[in-house]
């Protein structure tokens, strides 16, 4: 079975979905059936035939460049593909209820299908160009999904911001891809890795010999060590943007303006996590480049800790989940950044797997609760899940997982991440120590806000909250995801992810750290909002994401717009000036000429003849001799 099928089914579904977008029932049926089929295919592939690589399905004759457009289906990728398909199916099924009354449900479902296809493409791609295709399409889908309720100005702005921030970061990603492909002469992942694995020191030598950079660049077109570092950093920048890591983190909380199922999809299994998959594919190169590892390590360490703290202090629970995503994606990437070459990146992928399950569960549960409560603010949602058993169960499992309690899926993966970071710290040439410290602190903070979230949502209320009217799809989805979150950790037993044995020590340490976090959250007792108790002063700042939005505007948006105005002015007044100047000069010459001929005097005419003859004679005699 070709992995292309995995991509083609949801892509086709989106195409069909666009055609039948006016008919909600058809659109829903197409989306859910396609989602189910995709999951089935992914599962079958995972179970039956891992380990194949296929290339050259499309023959693109582009001169000297080799574009195999290869796909790869190793077990880890297929596992991730399966969980992506699962979450996508869950989101599609859930949306039939959540957006059932929406007048643009059809478009939404089609976009989700396309989004799924793009993510699956990134997952199965073993080709940088294919990866880029999926990567960019996801960005566009996120724009459509976040801006789904485009009647609201906030949604429009959030969509714009999400796309622009990620696209700006993508400058790095695109250039990185182009650079790697150019150096290798092929876009196939194995070819790129092979070519760049043993780089030359050409640039280094040229620069040391005193050649200026442009010349040195011209002299070294073979894969080069310095160039590799630059390209890796560029790629990392792109990944940081899509994954909403510092300094690009601020688009993600704003993206909560989108419908909750869209948030679940974007956060849990697709866009923000995609960077982990990409970097995992390039891990052999990354692990060899301390600079790139440090850039990534520092960014994700800051991100995960900062985001965890901000999550704790959010007054809006949906935004709390958003910040938790930033933090958890940081955790995934930290495994890639810190893991020494021998360990491989699979700890990060495992965390991607588990995060997909529990984060989608949390989002979908929260979405239901928010519908019941009529808003997502912490004050309003207080106790909104307390009356619905399925919600309580889902939230319990979800938050336990988020906190990283051992044995549920989140705990299992987090232990592996910690172990990888520890290995990295021991190996010593990467940011292992930093990452390890950040991870431990983040785990505690995560446990604290997870506790806060659970406490708030399931707090006892005098008035019995309404459960909201739901179709059977919603509870079914939640039950399924709850089950998956509980049992998902068993995936380590399948051997799909290349993991090291985790010693019991990590179990104990995790329990300890989580315990500290939970205890911290419970300082104020069970009835009070821990954020009120511990971080009341921080809340207003946290809600605004520390004002980074203003920073974006001041540092990027406004200067660019100012430059644009200058350019537009220069374009019409200066660049076009020479055109108008020519016209003006012609007219002036014409005016001057007709002034000269105004008299139309015959004597002038004769004078001109005589003068002209003299001039010509002089020119002739002087010129010819």
């Amino acid at each position, binding site marked *: 079975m070709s992995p292309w099928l995995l991509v083609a089914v949801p892509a086709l579904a989106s195409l069909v979905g*666009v055609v039948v977008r006016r008919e909600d029932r058809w659109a829903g049926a197409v989306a859910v059936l396609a989602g189910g089929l995709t999951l089935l295919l992914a599962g079958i592939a995972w179970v039956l035939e891992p380990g194949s690589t296929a290339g050259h399905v*499309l*023959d*693109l*004759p*582009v*001169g*000297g*460049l080799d574009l195999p457009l290869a796909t790869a289906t190793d077990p880890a990728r297929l596992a991730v593909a399966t969980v992506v398909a699962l979450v996508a199916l869950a989101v599609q099924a859930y949306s039939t209820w959540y957006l059932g009354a929406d007048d643009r449900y059809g478009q939404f479902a089609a976009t989700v299908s396309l989004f799924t296809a793009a993510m699956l493409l990134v997952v199965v791609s073993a080709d940088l*160009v294919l990866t*880029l*295709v*999926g990567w*960019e*399409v996801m960005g*566009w889908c996120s*724009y459509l999904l976040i*801006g789904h309720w*485009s*009647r609201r*100005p906030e949604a*429009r702005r959030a969509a*714009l911001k999400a*796309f*622009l921030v990620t*696209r*700006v970061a*993508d*400058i790095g990603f*695109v*250039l990185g891809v*182009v*650079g790697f*492909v*150019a150096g290798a002469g092929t876009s196939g992942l194995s070819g790129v890795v092979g070519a760049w694995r043993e780089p030359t020191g050409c640039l280094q030598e040229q620069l040391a010999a005193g050649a*200026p*950079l*442009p*010349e*040195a*660049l*011209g002299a070294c*077109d073979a894969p080069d060590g310095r160039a590799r570092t630059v390209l890796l950093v560029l790629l990392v920048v792109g990944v940081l943007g899509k994954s909403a890591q510092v300094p690009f983190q601020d688009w993600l909380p704003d993206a909560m303006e989108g419908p909750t199922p869209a948030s679940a999809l974007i956060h849990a299994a697709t866009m923000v996590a995609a960077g982990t998959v990409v970097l995992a594919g390039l891990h052999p190169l990354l692990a060899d480049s301390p600079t790139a590892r440090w850039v990534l390590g520092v960014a994700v360490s800051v991100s995960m800790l900062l985001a965890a703290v901000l999550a704790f202090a959010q007054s809006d629970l949906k935004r709390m989940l958003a910040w938790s995503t930033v933090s958890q994606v940081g955790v995934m990437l930290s495994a890639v950044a810190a893991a020494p070459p021998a360990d491989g990146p699979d700890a990060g992928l495992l965390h991607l797997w588990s995060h997909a399950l529990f984060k989608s569960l949390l989002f979908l549960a929260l979405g239901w609760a928010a519908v019941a409560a009529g808003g997502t603010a912490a004050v309003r949602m207080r106790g909104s899940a307390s009356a619905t058993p399925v919600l309580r169960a889902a939230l319990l499992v979800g938050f336990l997982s988020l906190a990283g309690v051992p044995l549920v899926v989140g705990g299992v993966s987090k232990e592996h991440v910690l172990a990888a970071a520890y290995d990295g710290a021991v190996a010593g040439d990467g940011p292992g120590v930093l990452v390890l410290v950040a991870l431990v602190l983040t785990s505690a903070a995560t446990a604290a806000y997870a506790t806060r979230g659970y406490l708030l949502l399931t707090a006892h209320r005098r008035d019995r909250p309404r459960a909201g009217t739901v179709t059977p799809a919603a509870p079914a989805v939640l039950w399924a995801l709850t089950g998956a979150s509980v049992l998902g950790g068993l995936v380590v037993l399948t051997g799909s992810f290349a993991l090291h044995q985790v010693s019991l020590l990590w179990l104990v340490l995790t329990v300890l750290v989580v315990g500290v976090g939970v205890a911290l959250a419970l300082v104020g007792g069970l009835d009070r909002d821990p954020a009120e108790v511990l971080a009341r002063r921080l809340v207003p700042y946290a809600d605004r994401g520390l004002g980074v939005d203003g920073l974006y505007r001041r540092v990027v948006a406004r200067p*660019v*717009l100012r*430059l*644009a*105005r200058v*350019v*537009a002015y220069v*374009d*019409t007044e200066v*660049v*076009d000036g020479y*055109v108008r100047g020519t016209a003006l000069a012609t007219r002036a010459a014409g005016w001057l000429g007709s002034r000269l001929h105004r008299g139309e005097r015959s004597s002038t005419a004769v004078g001109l003849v005589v003068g002209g003859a003299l001039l010509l004679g002089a020119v002739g005699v002087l010129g010819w001799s």
Partner: protein
Amino acid sequence: MVVSLLLALPAAAGLWLVTAGRATPPRLARPLAAASALGTAVLAVLVLVTGSQVDRAWLPELGLRWSFAADGISAPLLLLTAGIGLVVTAHAWVELPPGGSPAGYLGCLLLVETGALATFTARDAVLFLVAFEVVLVPMWVLVGRYGDRRDPRARADAAGRFVLYTAAGSSTLLVGILLLVVSTGTADLRELADGAGAALGPGRQLAVALLLVLGLAVKVPVLPLHTWLPPAHTTAPTAGSVLLAAVLLKMGTYGLVRLPLATVPDGFGRLAPVLAVAGAVGVVWGGLVCLVERDLKRLVAYSSVAHMGFVVLALASGSETGVQAALLANVAHGLVAALLFVLVGGLKQRWGSVDLAVRRPALRETSPRLGLALVVGLAASLGLPGLATFWGELLALYSAWAPAGDRPRGVFVAAAVLAAVGAALAAAYALRVAGLVWAGDRPAADAGTGTDAVGVERWVLVTLAGAVVVLGVAPMLVLSSTADAVAGLGGLR
């Protein structure tokens, strides 16, 4: 034989419509024009299938032959032109601009198509120039007579600027061609390409390349020779804008491939860094202007400048990949620009103006079909994978990063970085338009529903959007057609 028919059919129909048949009522003129365009399209396919060519002496004193044939490089452009010809004649059912007789308008459209087809099939350098000039007058009439009715002065200015600016370019081109012809002793493009300028000294090569590039750069247009484009686009009727963007600009890039790149590769190589920087700056420049431009039609025009910047950058790289990228991006931009101009023309017809400063209800609410087409167009404009522009522009970046061996790599890498930044700007302006027009900034409640695209307009949009998607998913449709011919260009390395 077939290739002669290909040129004769639209020429005859067009000439008849602008002269004897000027008074033909629209009810007859429209089907006639559309039928000619359809016939031309069929003939274009036939020409490609049969490999028809014609080659006889036309002006032996000048070594000028009446020589037309299509090869892999011209094939996609031929089909594009024929397709766009169909689109614009069909569009006459949607909009017949006032200002003169409808038949004359349709005739001018067909004549422009003729000129473009002749340009893309000409196999003789001087004949190429003659064909190049054929489009000028009909296009001038389209802009100057059938253009925007509101401001006659602006109309005359735009039309005059178009024709004079491009004439300045083609005069320079003429000098370049003549110099090339007298230096090599042949005007046959194939022979010239085979010779690859070997007969010329380095100084002569540079002079020829400079003249050719300067002349063609006006048509492309390459920054800073682009200022004729925005007024022309803003003023021209919808179909005129479509032809201008989708066909006329392509003549410039096609010329760059056929003339300087193929015939004087060394001279072109020495100019390439300048051209690459101009292209990359054009990408950023166009993007920046689009961020603050108020008139949507002008905005699309400036986005054309940006897109053509990618094409120029790819061409300048001088590698086979670069030329392939340029040819692909060329066709892609033709489709996308056609789609956007049809859309914007439709909006202008409905709203009276396309000033972005006017707050309007969401297009996706009032006219969902137009909205969908707009989103496809804008997404293509920002280079979304899966749509036509992506491949060309990515490969353009690639070719700039890894240019031909004799190019100064540092300059090209810098240009690639600049162009990548420009691609991000493309996202910014595309989303600016999407935010203002598609998502709307006025509540829909007080707007009511607008008229959506129906009938011919709908099918025109569906066709163009479909073509954009198809080319995005299957870029090999163009690439495999051009591959052999590009590989055969002597000057590439």
